[in-house]
């Protein structure tokens, strides 16, 4: 499904990622953990086309996507959910969600997706007409994930969904992510600590100072064959 091959990423002169490689098979929930500032978010943004990749290659669904515009990736179902949510503050919850279905891919399924998001988060349905800036942290995170789902993702790249949430809300959020995986969405999930996500992931990569130092496969993992064919 997704194959990241020896990518290097820079921010200005800062070398953030050093030859990072990882694989995500169809239907897998793969985690990337590591401390802050070690390049987890950068890795996710590079995969999703939001920051340029200086060297190496990224293959998604059989296509080399390095340097492709984000709109092209979203149109093919590779969708990014940001740690800082990146909502449209002066638009309503509904408008935010419908903008998730901005491209044809999402638009075709718009009504179904909207129903799915509102079933998943009745809170968002209640606050449909409210401006996004008035939401609480937990609701904003629901909206960020909901907007991602509106794009009809095949592979959802989720950046630290627990950031700024109360512990109880973190559990609910992670449970939702596990549910999305069971419903067939492939997920690449970034978190700070393995302890948060070891119950739901199939495999975890540990990132330290821009290098993958370790890969752990969990018992519940899907068969390795699934992630070879990308």
């Amino acid at each position, binding site marked *: 499904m997704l194959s990241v091959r020896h990518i290097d990423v820079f921010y200005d002169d800062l070398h953030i990622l050093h030859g990072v490689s990882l694989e995500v098979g169809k239907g897998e929930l793969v985690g990337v953990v590591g401390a802050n500032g070690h390049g987890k978010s950068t890795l996710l943004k590079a995969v999703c086309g939001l920051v340029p990749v200086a060297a190496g290659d990224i293959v998604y669904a059989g296509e080399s996507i390095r340097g492709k*515009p984000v709109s092209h990736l979203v149109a093919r179902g590779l969708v990014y959910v940001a740690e800082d949510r*990146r909502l449209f503050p002066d638009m309503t919850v509904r408008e935010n969600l419908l903008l998730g279905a901005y491209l044809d891919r999402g638009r075709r399924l718009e009504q179904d997706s909207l129903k799915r998001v509102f079933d998943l988060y009745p809170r968002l349905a209640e606050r449909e007409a409210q401006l996004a800036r008035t939401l609480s942290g937990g609701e904003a995170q629901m909206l960020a994930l909901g907007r991602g789902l509106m794009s009809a993702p095949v592979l959802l790249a989720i950046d630290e969904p627990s950031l700024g949430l109360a512990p109880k809300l973190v559990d609910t959020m992670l449970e939702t992510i596990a549910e999305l995986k069971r419903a067939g969405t492939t997920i690449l999930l970034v978190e700070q600590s393995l302890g948060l996500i070891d119950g739901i992931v199939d495999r975890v990569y540990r990132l330290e100072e821009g290098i993958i130092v370790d890969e752990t496969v969990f018992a519940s993992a899907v068969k390795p064959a699934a992630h070879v064919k990308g």
Partner: protein
Amino acid sequence: MEQFFAVLFGGIAQAAVYSIIAVGLSLVYGTARTLNFAYGGLYTTGAYISWVLTVGYLGLPLWLAVLLLIPILFFIGVAIERFMLRPLRRGKNWKVTAMMVTLGLAFVLDNANLILFGAVAKPMPAFIDGTVSIFGVAVSAYRLAVLIIALLIVAALELFLNRTRFGWAVRAVAQDIQGARQVGIDVNRIFSFTFGLSVVLTGCAGLLLSPIFLISPQGGWEPFLKAFVIVVLGGLGSTRGAVAAAFFLGLVEAAVVYELGASWTMPVWLVTLLLVLMIRPQGLLGRGQTEAAG
């Protein structure tokens, strides 16, 4: 009293046109984060193109001239964004660089207009003559038409921004560029589009106001300055704020013209701006600028 109403009405009609100019400036500032100093020069250019299409050379009827004018202006705007500003956006401090480039463009436009059309102001006939009576007060029919057209344009813009998918995308880019990219919006396309739209707005305003003010090479600086005051007063990037501020200042202007004379307009505008900003630094309807990284 009758004279006061005539002045008041003139103020409102002009305010409506200023609101179009200001909304265009505000849209580009809000989405592309660029303060376009060439905006006044483009206003004048729009007026000169209209002049060439109608009474100046080609003698086309007004409706046909407008039909040609709009795509020409849009294309000019898109070309400026695409070829002059987009290449700058990769560099550091591009906002300052872009501002300087638009300032340079303003001088190029001013001088090109001066060379092409000469320093003597060109008269433009009003497209509608005569007066109409409103509440027993005779007002110029042309000014009434200008007011109605300007209000229709503002209403159309509001509809576009709030009711269409593409309009949502424009607002999304203004509110969070990275968020807009994440949902698959082609941000560069939005930049080009808003630039094109803003030039259409300022150029059409140039056409609308040319029978009132004549067309001269430097004539765009005052509308630009006024639009700038309106945009700052209304809150940077806020479309509705710009419209509200335009009408507020239009009324202030009418009162000033009536009591003190037209030359006091700009000083009073600027004092009003200072006073409002002392009380509400974010402008009348502004929310304070959120700095969204690209």
